């Protein structure tokens, strides 16, 4: 039997970490992530979750302690957002390089300055080259499901990389939705126990982890991560399929989700909670006899570019939405990654929702109209106030 609770996105992440019976949580509060680590603190305080809760003094230490815990053979979970993720930046590389399968929830939020606690995706997009697998949720149910899947993906011997599960700040973190919670025994049966063979700290079998890698060795370690990223594509799909079978919930093929792409010439490529709004608009237009489509990216790293190309084969005009901006390029990261692979299509970049600026259903419909007439390769900022 499952249980349905009406909960926020951060609670969904905390519930998932509890269901995964994590051993160590090292966390520092930051808006809008805080309610996740508060919830976990409650679980531990009430004996609902048997874990060490390390109340670290910074996000840098949160990630450092998570690496130490994971290297010592524990299942480690942490959560952060924005400035906190940026503070972790250095050690995010270390987590990937040391191949520790830490799972982290990130509440997507804008970066200073000016200080802004509201949602965009600049924080996680700026970490794209750290070697972390990045997954993005559309709603709170997907948050819970992704966190559970994340442990199984991260701990897979063909992967052994840390996984970041992203959810849009406030839009998901602070909005309640009905979420179905599976039974813990089923979750544990699904993800298994973390028993590292590749790297662990145990006095019975001394092992050196995090050694100095000179020019004779460093490059191979990068290549090994790239190989693991490549492996991860299949693992993510397999884990998704196995999850779908066991828990009866599916999200496209686990890496991308196509919505009405068969007949649509004008399509949007997007990531995160905005996909919900886009789907509503697609349904609305369908009733009017207009076919427009969505390609939702669920897995941004590794980026399943072949799948994306294939899913967009019928599209003519592709609008790529970015809730981040690579300053000095006037492009968002998703556009930069995807558009170059779509040479036979018209691609237009839309910079949307920076720092929590509303993206309305009208904006979405406007983008579908605009992508048909806008010139190829252009960048349009949506909702920008004119001077």
């Amino acid at each position, binding site marked *: 039997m499952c249980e349905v609770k009406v909960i926020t996105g951060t609670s969904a992440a905390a519930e998932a970490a509890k269901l995964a019976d994590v051993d160590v949580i090292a966390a520092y509060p930051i808006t809008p992530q805080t309610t996740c680590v508060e919830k976990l603190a409650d679980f531990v305080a009430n004996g609902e979750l048997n874990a060490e809760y390390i109340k670290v003094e910074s996000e840098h230490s949160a990630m450092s302690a998570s690496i130490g*815990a994971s290297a010592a053979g524990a299942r480690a979970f942490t959560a952060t957002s924005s400035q906190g993720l940026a503070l972790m930046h250095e050690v995010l590389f270390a987590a990937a390089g040391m191949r520790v399968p830490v799972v982290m929830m990130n509440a997507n939020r804008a970066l200073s300055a000016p200080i802004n606690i509201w949602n965009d995706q600049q924080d996680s997009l700026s970490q794209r080259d750290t070697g972390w697998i990045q997954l993005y949720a559309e709603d709170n149910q997907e948050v819970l499901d992704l966190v559970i899947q994340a442990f199984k993906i991260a701990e897979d011997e063909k992967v052994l990389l840390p996984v970041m599960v992203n959810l849009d700040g406030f839009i998901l973190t602070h909005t309640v939705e009905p979420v179905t919670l599976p039974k813990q025994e089923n979750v544990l049966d699904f993800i298994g126990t973390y028993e590292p063979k590749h790297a662990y700290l145990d006095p019975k079998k001394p092992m050196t982890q995090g*050694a100095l890698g000179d020019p004779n060795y460093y490059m191979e370690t990068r290549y090994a991560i790239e190989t693991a990223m490549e492996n991860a594509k299949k693992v993510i799909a397999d884990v998704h399929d196995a999850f779908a079978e066991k828990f009866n919930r599916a999200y496209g093929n686990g890496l991308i989700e196509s919505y009405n792409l068969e007949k649509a010439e004008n399509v949007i490529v997007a990531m995160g909670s905005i996909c919900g709004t886009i789907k509503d608009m697609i349904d609305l237009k369908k009733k009017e006899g207009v076919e427009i489509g969505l390609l939702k990216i669920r897995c941004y790293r590794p980026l399943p570019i072949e799948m994306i190309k294939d899913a967009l084969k019928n599209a003519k005009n592709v609008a790529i939405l970015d809730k981040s901006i690579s300053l000095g390029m006037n492009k968002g990261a998703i556009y930069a990654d995807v558009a170059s692979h779509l040479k036979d299509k018209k691609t237009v970049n839309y910079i949307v929702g920076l720092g929590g600026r509303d993206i309305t259903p009208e904006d979405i419909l406007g983008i579908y109209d605009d992508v048909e007439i806008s010139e190829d390769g252009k960048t349009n900022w949506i909702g920008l106030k004119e001077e």
Partner: protein
Amino acid sequence: MTGSQFPREELFAPGHRGCAGCGAAIVARLALKAAGKNTIVANATGCLEVMTTPYPETAWRVPWIHVAFENAAAVASGVEGAVAALKRKRGKYGEEKVNVIAFGGDGGTADIGFQALSGAMERGHDMVYIMYDNEAYMNTGVQRSGSTPLMASTTTSPAGSLIRGETMPKKNMPMIMAAHGIPYVATASISYPEDFMNKVKKACEINGPAFIQVMQPCTTGWGYPADKTIELGRLAVETGVWPLFEIENGEFKLNYKPLKRKPIEEYLKVQKRYRHLNPEEISVIQKTIDMKCDEYGL
């Protein structure tokens, strides 16, 4: 324990890449002898880390982890948390005590790693933090740290005609750590191995955080012949530059009192980092040492 009672087994292997006469290697060797096999080490970036683990070699016969420069204490917090959780949840390690020891140099401890250290100590993790203090950022090429003593010349506190080396006194780490209210704080020296090892042993046995700052002369940074490391460490103690004490549950105890303190000049004159000093400057240093010794009852 006396010297002959410490195990002969070496958990810190020979063949590392330390300089001839390196004091940091002695720190690690003695500490591991005292702690024993059931130990996990977290190491900050620095001399000790770089010289002991050039892949595919390692000098560590205990499990060892390095992540970054400023986070040895935080990584050790995670390791300690994992050990506790795995003991409790899965019966791993049984009844055995697993020591978690973090090693950091003075830069990685008193400066960039200070926040993580303070956090780990304040949270009460059952770990031993060993600060091997060679009084500068030696691994990077001898730059000043918060632990560099007054008037010592380093590449970022050079002795010039206008500025005479380091302008600030050495940061008082043992007292700062003691102010955290942790059960055990001690100073030590590689030149007094029994004292140092007994302190490591005691720190491992104590439940909760322990901090040991061990002075470790550095041939390269201080500028002296490689065979004088132990001698110089002893001079630091005998001149009162480096008092040996421990603070157990807030109780201060001086461990060694020289019959007669040697003049500071004996310690300074054998080191290149102090060779710019004139007699007047030496007497200024002597006065600061005298004041410190009065305070500690030395």
